[in-house]
């Protein structure tokens, strides 16, 4: 069991309170996944020619400020770090892939959680309520967000094994379920050059989507091909710079509810997580059909 939440805003009022509402949603899903929690926020896009990086350090402060200086020196422009608990985000005057390569070479001790123009990923082991408080989710504004609460069934409970998983620039994946062919698929993808940080099944699904998208598939095509190549149970939510998409496995082993009002679109593992949103009782509410890709924003374009 795990919990998934997605929230897409349609009004400036909702954008300002995005983190606050996602936090309430994650708290409701806490009992579905008390082992760890995470969130991906889409907010404050970096200017043209710049990228945004989310980094995690096992040490409380590995010298984020100094790292900002190094990035500035290396690329001729970098923001000061925005530090949240064990994570920090930077905007850097560089191509995201160049910045990634630089970090891998100069700071292999840091873990890159996400890269792109607007995505920020935060995740940590421990109770979701603790995560929400420690990372001050209440303060975070943005256009849309995905969240996850994890009950580990197939691999360890660590920050790295937590969701969301990055699936490429400005892309991320959260998953409720378990995959049974991930070991074989990981080997196949590794031969294709996809790198993995953990033995987690969801990271393989994330890598699979990265590989499909790299090969020219649209997000919708990539998700539809999951139904042929992934064996197991899943409700997936995929975040993109423009919105998010949802897919349930054809048997619909794992739950999902969606709801929409004039102010927001939400998906969650259970309705109780949607009930905390304003006007939820009057929202158009439905259960997504199995094996069908749903999307908001221009997530699939």
């Amino acid at each position: 069991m795990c919990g998934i939440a997605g929230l897409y805003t349609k009004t400036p009022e909702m954008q300002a309170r995005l983190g606050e509402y996602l936090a309430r949603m994650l708290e409701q899903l806490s009992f579905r996944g008390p082992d760890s929690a995470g969130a991906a926020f889409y907010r404050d896009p970096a200017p043209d020619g710049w990228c945004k990086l989310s980094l995690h350090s096992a040490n409380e402060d590995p010298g984020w400020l100094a790292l900002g200086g190094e990035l500035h020196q290396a690329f001729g422009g970098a923001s000061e770090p925005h530090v949240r608990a064990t994570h920090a985000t930077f905007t850097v005057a560089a191509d995201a892939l160049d910045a990634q390569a630089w970090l891998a070479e100069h700071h292999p001790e840091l873990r890159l959680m996400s890269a792109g123009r607007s995505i920020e990923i935060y995740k940590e082991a421990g109770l979701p309520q603790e995560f929400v408080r420690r990372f001050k989710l209440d303060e975070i504004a943005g256009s849309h967000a995905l969240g996850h609460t994890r009950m580990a069934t197939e691999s360890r409970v660590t920050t790295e094994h937590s969701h969301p998983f990055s699936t490429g620039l400005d892309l991320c994946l959260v998953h409720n379920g378990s995959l049974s062919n991930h070991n074989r698929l990981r080997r196949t993808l590794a031969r294709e050059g996809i790198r993995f940080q953990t033995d987690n099944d969801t990271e393989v699904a994330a890598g699979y989507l990265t590989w499909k998208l790299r090969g020219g598939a649209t997000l919708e095509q990539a998700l539809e091909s999951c139904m042929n190549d992934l064996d197991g149970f899943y409700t997936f939510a995929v975040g993109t710079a423009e919105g998010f998409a949802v897919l349930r496995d054809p048997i619909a082993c794992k739950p999902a509810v969606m709801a929409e009002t004039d102010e927001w679109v939400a998906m969650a593992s259970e309705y109780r997580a949607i009930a905390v949103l304003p006007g939820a009782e009057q929202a158009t509410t439905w259960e997504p059909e199995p094996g069908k890709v749903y999307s908001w924003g221009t997530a699939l374009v």
Partner: protein
Amino acid sequence: MAIPPAATDTTLTFDLSSESVRELNRRLHEAVDPRRVTVVNPGGRHSIAVGINAPHEVEIAGHVGYYCAGMNKLATVRIAGNCGVGVAENLMSGTVIVEGSASQSAGATARGGLLVVHGDASARCAISLKGADIVVRGSVGHMSAFMAQTGALVVCGNAGDSLGDSIYEARLYVRGSVAGFGADCIEKEMRAEHLEQVAGLLARAEIDDVDPAEFRRYGSARRLYNFHVDNLGSY
């Protein structure tokens, strides 16, 4: 909130934004005399009004989570909203009415009584049905009536794939289309007794704008549930 001492005053309102589901259920279990209970602010909470064993009338004003009105005996539970997984699971008797839609496994293993869903019910509705009657105003999802043993499922809309897989003796009535049949489920003749049964169930569900003559009946071909070596490929 306290149970009113006077037997004449038996109407209660229970607010789940300030009181717990456990407390609500405890009160419902304790009360022997019939009560009229209104539950407000359900907020999608699980296990609301489960295990009632008295002819209470419970009205829930909003959407509920999993297993609402599970194991109900005698009571009438009306949900003015949508339900999560397993509404009225193992229903024994009484009536459960869902004014919105129900998620998966509505009426699972229900043994008696009546479940009415005015919206749609999703996958596995009436799974392992054991004697209850279920009327769905909308459509049902895939694998509905899986291994259903006895009782009836009336669907005014359409049925999803694999209807009635491995069905025993439950009767399935569908007005619209059936996306596909599960193993050993076939169409059967709609005789006078079946029309009468559908008409009776629609009346009990207070659905008066649907013609019983528009339904088709499905049930077991009885080729599967006794082991036969020739059927090995189907097991």
